C-alpha cells in the first residue's frame, strides 16, 4: 500500500508526502519504464525518475505545478517523497487521480489523506477506483 498526505495550509501552501514500501515502488517503476532504480542511491537521475513517475500517476486539481522537494529512505524499507505546491485558498472541491503502483500489484491500495485545518478527508484508491471528487468543506 502507499499513503499520500496532502496538507492544504491557510496561506495557500501545499505539502505533499508520498509514503511507499521502497521495493514495491522500484518494481513498479522498472516494469513501467524499464529503468531499474535504487531509491536509496543519491543521484539526480533517480530524483528525476521518481518525480516523473509520481506526477504521471498522481494528480489533484486546483494546484499549481508541484515542486519536487526531496526523498527519505529508511532501512526498514519505508520511503518518502516530498513535493510542495500552491493552491487557490477559495477552492474547496478537488478532483484527485491516483494510479500509483496499481498496474503492478493486484491488491494495491493507495490511501490518500487531504487535510485542511482540522478537517481530514481520506480516500482509498484501487484498480477499479482511481478518481475521486472531494469537497473539503462537506
Amino acid at each position, binding site marked *: *500500500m502507499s*499513503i499520500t*498526505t496532502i*496538507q492544504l495550509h491557510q496561506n495557500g501552501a501545499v*505539502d*505533499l*508526502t508520498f*509514503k511507499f514500501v*521502497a521495493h514495491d515502488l522500484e518494481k513498479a517503476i522498472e*516494469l*513501467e*519504464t*524499464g529503468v531499474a532504480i*535504487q531509491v*536509496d*542511491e543519491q543521484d539526480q537521475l533517480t530524483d528525476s525518475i521518481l518525480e516523473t513517475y509520481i506526477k504521471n500517476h498522481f494528480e489533484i486539481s486546483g494546484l499549481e505545478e508541484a515542486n519536487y*522537494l*526531496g526523498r*527519505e*529512505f*529508511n*532501512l*526498514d*524499507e519505508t520511503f*518518502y517523497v*516530498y513535493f510542495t505546491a500552491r493552491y487557490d485558498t477559495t477552492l474547496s472541491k478537488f478532483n484527485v487521480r491516483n494510479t500509483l503502483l*496499481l*498496474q503492478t500489484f*493486484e*491488491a494495491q*491500495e493507495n*490511501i490518500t489523506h487531504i487535510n485542511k485545518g482540522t478537517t481530514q478527508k481520506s480516500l*482509498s484508491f*484501487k*484498480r477499479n477506483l482511481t478518481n475521486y471528487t472531494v469537497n473539503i468543506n462537506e
Partner: protein
Amino acid sequence: MNKLIVILLSILVFKVSGQENVNKFRQLKDKLATPNVYRTASGAPGHQYYQQQANYEIDVVLDDNRQKITGKEVVTYINNSPDPLEYLWLQLDQNVRAKGSDTKKVKTGQISKNKDLNTLYYTLKTFGEGYYEFDGGFKLTKVKTITPNAFDSFTVNKTMMRLNLNKPLAPGDSVKFRIEWYYNINDRMEIGGRSGLEYFREEDNYLYTIAQFYPRMCVYNDVEGWQNKQFLGRGEFALPFGNFKVNITAPSDHIVAATGDLKNQKEVLTKTQISRLEKAKKTYDNPVLIVTQKEAEEIEKTKATTTKTWTFHAANVRDFAFASSRKFIWDAMAVKQDGGDDVMAMSYYPKEGNPLWEEHSTRAVAQTLRTYSKYTIPYPYPKAISVNAKQIGMEYPMICFNYGRCENDGTYSDRVKYGMITVVIHEVGHNYFPMIINSDERQWTWMDEGLNTYLQYLTEQEYQEDYPSRRGPAHKIVDYMKGDKKMISPIMTNSESIWQFGNNAYGKPATALNILRETVMGKELFDYAFKKYAQRWAFKHPTPADFFRTMEDASGVDLDWYWRGWFYTNDHVDIAIKKVIEKDKKDYKKALKELNDVQKKALKLDEDFFIYQIDFENIGGLVMPLIVEFTYEDGTKKTHYIPAEIWKLTNDEVSKVFVEKKKVKSIALDPYLETADTDISNNYYPKKVVPTKIEAYKLKEAQKKSVLERVGK
C-alpha cells in the same frame, strides 16, 4: 386496544430478548472447534491425537545440459488414523507451471494506459495465452503399487493426484508404491517460482535451487480430512512428517546442499573439504570455509562431463529440498544451544554474493538458531543451511534460499546488507514454523508467517541493537490498519483470499503477538505460554484454536477479546482522550469540613490533591489497555497502566478518575506508541500538534544549511 398493546409489548420483548451479544469480551466459543479426543480445550494434543506418516526413498538426477529433473520414488504411507482410507492424495506442485495451469487463468489485471514496450512485454508475459509457453509441470512416467493389489489406477486433478485404492487402507496398515517422473526446471528469473534455476549468462553456468520436485503426500487429519485444496501459487504447503533417503546425481564438479545428513562424504568431498568440515564442527565463533572463493572461481571455469551421487538421510522431516551448482562457496560453523545438541550453521553462495555472504549469512543462521531455540524448543536437526538465490526467500526443512547480491566491484549498501540478513533470519526461522510446528499454510498463512515474523523481530534485535526491523513494533502496522476496511481481510482468512498479503499474514499477526507480549500479557507470561505451544505442537499439526487455547491456558490470561478483535475482525485501534475534567482540594472545601479527624488522617488531607476525570472514546473498535502518562507541573512524569478489561461493560466509551498529589500539566495516551493507535492526534490533553513527516524533513534540510544560506546570502 388492549390487544394491540399486548402485541406491541410482545414485539418489544422479543426484540430485546433476541438481541445478539456483541460485547467485545464475549467468549470465543462460537469461533473455535469443539474440543475432542484429538485436540483438548487446553490447546494440547488430545489423548487420541494421531498423525499420518510418509517415508520416501528417492533417486533424482539433475541434468545440467537440459536443465531437467528426472526422479524415481518409493513412498511408504502409514495410516495412523482411526479411519479406513478409500483413496490417497498426493501433491503435484510442479503442475502450477504446467500449460493450462489455473494459476495463470485466475490472475486478474487491467490494460495499462502506458503504451511503451516494457509495459507491453510485462502484460503479454503475465496475462498472454501462449506468449510464454514454458513446458512445465510433472511428466509422470510410472505410478505403480508395490504393495500387492493396492491400486490399479490414479487420477490427476491439476496440482493433486488421487490413488484409487482397490480396498480401503485400514487403520494401522501401510501401503507402498513407486512413482517415476521428470520435469523441465523453470528459469526463476524469467517466470518466477519458489525454486528453479538461475542462469549466469557471462560464464554459461547455472545455480539450481530445487524443491517441490517430487510427488508429495497430502496431510490427512481430524480437522481437514485430506488437505487437497488446489495449489494456486500463494497458499503454501501442508505435509506429513516422514523419513527420507535421497540420492542426488549431479555433475561431478557441483557442490550439493540438501536437507538431512550427508551419508557418503568420502565419495563426494575431497580430503581437504572433509578436514575443513571437521574443523567447522568445533568452531563456534566464526564460519570456516569448506570451499573457498578462489576454489569456486577455478571450478566454475570448466564443466565436468561425469557425475557424482550424493546421499542424504533425514529423519522426521516434512519435506526435502536441495541446491546444486559448481559456483558454490561453502562455509560452516558450530552453534551451541541451551538444552540441545550442538548443530551446524552453513551457507552456500556464488562469488556474486561476496563479501556480504561470507560476513553475515552463516552468522545470521547461527543467531536464528540461538534465539528461536530460546523461545521455542532446541533445534532438533543436525544443520541449518542458507543458500544464495537471487530475488527470492523460501524455506524448506534444514535448507532455505535467500537473496542478497553485491555490486560487481564487491561493494554493497546497508540496505542490501539488512535485506539479506532479514531474509536469512526469516527463512531459517521457518524451520520452526511450519517445518517443525507443522501448521497448515494452505489454509492459514499467518500460523507460520506471522509467528515466524514475530520471532524474526526478536532475532534481529538480538543480532544487532537497534536493528532496522521492518515488522514487529506496534507503530509500523498503523498505516495498514487504518486503511479502507474493504481492502483489509481479518487475519483468519484463507491464504488465497487475503488482501494485502504481506501486511495481513506477516505484519499484523507478528505485531499482534509483539503487542500481546510487551503491552498486554507481559514477557514472562507470554514467553512461557508461547514456548508451551511450541513444545506441545513440535512435530505435530496445530490449528489456530490450539494456539489460541494454549496461550490462554498456560498463562491464566483470558485473551478471547484479543483473538476476536485482532484475528477475527479488521477493526483498528483508535482510542481518544475525549474530555478531561479537573478538580482540586479547593473544590471540595465544604465537604472536607464535614469529615472527622480520623477520616481526614486516613485520607491524608493535610496534603494537596488533584482529581482528574478522563473520558476515553474507542473510535477504532479494538479494545486495548490504556497507557496514560501524566506530566506534572514540576516536569516529573507518572504512567498509569490500565488493563483492557476497563472496556468490559461499555466497549465504546469509559470514564476513569485519577487522584494525584501533584498538579498535572499534560496527559498523553499511549505516549510510546505501544498499541498501534492509528490516530495519535487525539491522544493528548491539552491538544498537541504532532509535526508531519514533511515538516520534519524541511527542518532537517534547513539545519544542514547555515543561517546565511537559509536567508539566501
